[in-house]
């Protein structure tokens, strides 16, 4: 698979002073086209700062970030970079610009100078792919949090980016809104081949991804499949992160001396494993 985003030995600090603490400390990360990546980290771990490096909102002080073959430090490519990597933020209310849903989705395309007929087609496509086509003439404030966040995603999709970086898009949503957004993201990833980088601190969301990266104090701590990363329960807890509830359960059972697998991250697997365990106990 092709590399879509690559950070090489990136260091960054919000304070220019040399002794200021580094928010990103010599971090390297490669994301391949088509991946569904979760970036996990505690508050202040630098995960949002890292995200902002991928579409040139922030530029690395040391090291280099390359997106779709373009260096983010290259100012002439700024708008190409932002079209390649779209960014969705935490609060859906603060990223919707227009008073009508379809006008908001069209905003990026209008900025890019796309002809009107083409805008119309792309806006309809984008709204359909997030399942919000019927709401195209609504006002944003009539929608729920999850719906607003899907509109924000549609506004990015309309640019036809190769990758979307989402900075805690579900943090302000209720459980239903979170489920809606996650479902939308999975579909975009699977059906449209869009690379997704999801910054989150919800473990159950990270468990649904293909790959999990854990960031702590500006450094890359772990990188691997969800079940690999989550089986390192003690290490995760040491950096202030939780593990999915089922993994936690399995970990406790194992510590209590029961022979269970530790790389379990979904409820189905957990139920299966428990049945197996109980079945064995019953026959013995």
């Amino acid at each position, binding site marked *: 698979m092709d590399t879509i985003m690559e950070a090489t030995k990136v260091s960054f600090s919000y304070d220019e002073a040399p002794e200021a603490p580094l928010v990103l400390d010599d971090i390297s990360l490669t994301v391949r086209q088509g991946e569904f990546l979760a970036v996990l980290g505690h508050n202040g771990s630098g995960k949002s700062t890292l995200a902002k490096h991928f*579409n040139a*909102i922030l530029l690395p002080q040391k090291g280099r970030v390359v997106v779709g073959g373009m260096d983010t430090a290259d100012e002439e490519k700024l*708008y190409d970079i*932002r*079209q390649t990597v*779209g*960014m969705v*933020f935490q*609060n859906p*209310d*603060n*990223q*919707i*610009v*227009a*008073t*009508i849903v*379809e*006008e908001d989705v*069209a*905003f*990026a*395309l*209008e*900025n*890019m*100078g*796309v*002809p*009107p007929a083409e*805008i*119309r087609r792309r*806006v309809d496509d984008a709204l359909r792919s997030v399942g919000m086509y019927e709401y195209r003439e609504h*006002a*944003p*404030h009539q929608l729920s949090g999850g719906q607003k966040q899907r509109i*924000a995603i549609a*506004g*990015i999709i309309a*640019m036809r980016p190769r990758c979307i970086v989402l900075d805690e898009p579900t943090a302000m949503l209720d459980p239903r809104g979170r489920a809606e957004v996650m479902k939308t993201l999975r579909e975009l990833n699977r059906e449209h081949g869009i690379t997704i980088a999801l910054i989150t601190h919800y473990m159950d969301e990270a468990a649904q991804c293909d790959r999990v990266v854990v960031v702590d104090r500006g450094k890359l701590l772990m990188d691997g499949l969800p079940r690999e990363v989550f089986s390192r329960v003690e290490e995760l807890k040491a950096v202030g992160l939780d593990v999915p509830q089922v993994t936690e359960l399995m970990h406790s059972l194992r510590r209590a001396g029961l022979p269970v697998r530790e790389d379990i991250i979904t409820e189905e697997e957990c139920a299966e494993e428990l049945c197996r365990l109980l079945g064995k106990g019953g026959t013995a």
Partner: protein
Amino acid sequence: MIKDITIGQYFPGRSPVHRLDPRVKILLALGYIVLLFIAQNAWGLALGVVLGFGAYVISQIPLVMILKSLKPVVPIIIFTAVLNMLFVDGEALWQWWIIKITREGIHTAVFMAVRIICLIAGTSLLTYTTSPIALTDGIERLMNPLKRFHFPVHELAMMMTIALRFIPTLIEETDKIMSAQKARGADLETGGLMQRARALIPILIPLFVSSFRRADELALAMECRCYRGGEGRTRMKQLHMGPGDFAACGIILACIAGVVALNLLLP
């Protein structure tokens, strides 16, 4: 309670008046104002009244709305009417001490009152039948030629759009802050004017702080969507002049011509 505030008093509908191009509607409203001001006699003004009334009927806006739009200007209408009645010279109908009411005075008073009523009712029809977003769009396109003189047309329209977008959000937020302050024992409903004004401070400050934060985040989100000002921007929705628009323009021009003719024929 606070949520009931509506902005722009727009009545959604599909009448021929609603469907007019917003640019044309703004120009029609201006034309109507011109017509009212050049009318010099009762016949000309009557034409204006008929035209305005007809537009209301076609637009299917309830006629009660005319009265509602007039409510804030009633004092002005009464004030000008009284002044005209008292200070216009002419044949005295009734006199007491230095107060004198003349035939010409009454005539002018009624004339002016009808003119103001038509003015307010006519321009209100514009906001009743045009959504704020369409109105903003119309204004932006009408002012487009001013760009040549470095007038920030696009920026102005963008500010209006964002203001319209955030009014409901901020109203909701105000409601939340008020509840939060009430829960901490803030008293917003009793006391004198000064006391109540002071009670608003703990509501306004958090509202301001959060508005600045919102502005910051919105600016970032706009940049991420390649916003770089009005230069090279296209629009999804194009405005088109239809036969209805030309017909409406024709009617208003004919009426203005009619008023001019009436002015000349019936001095």
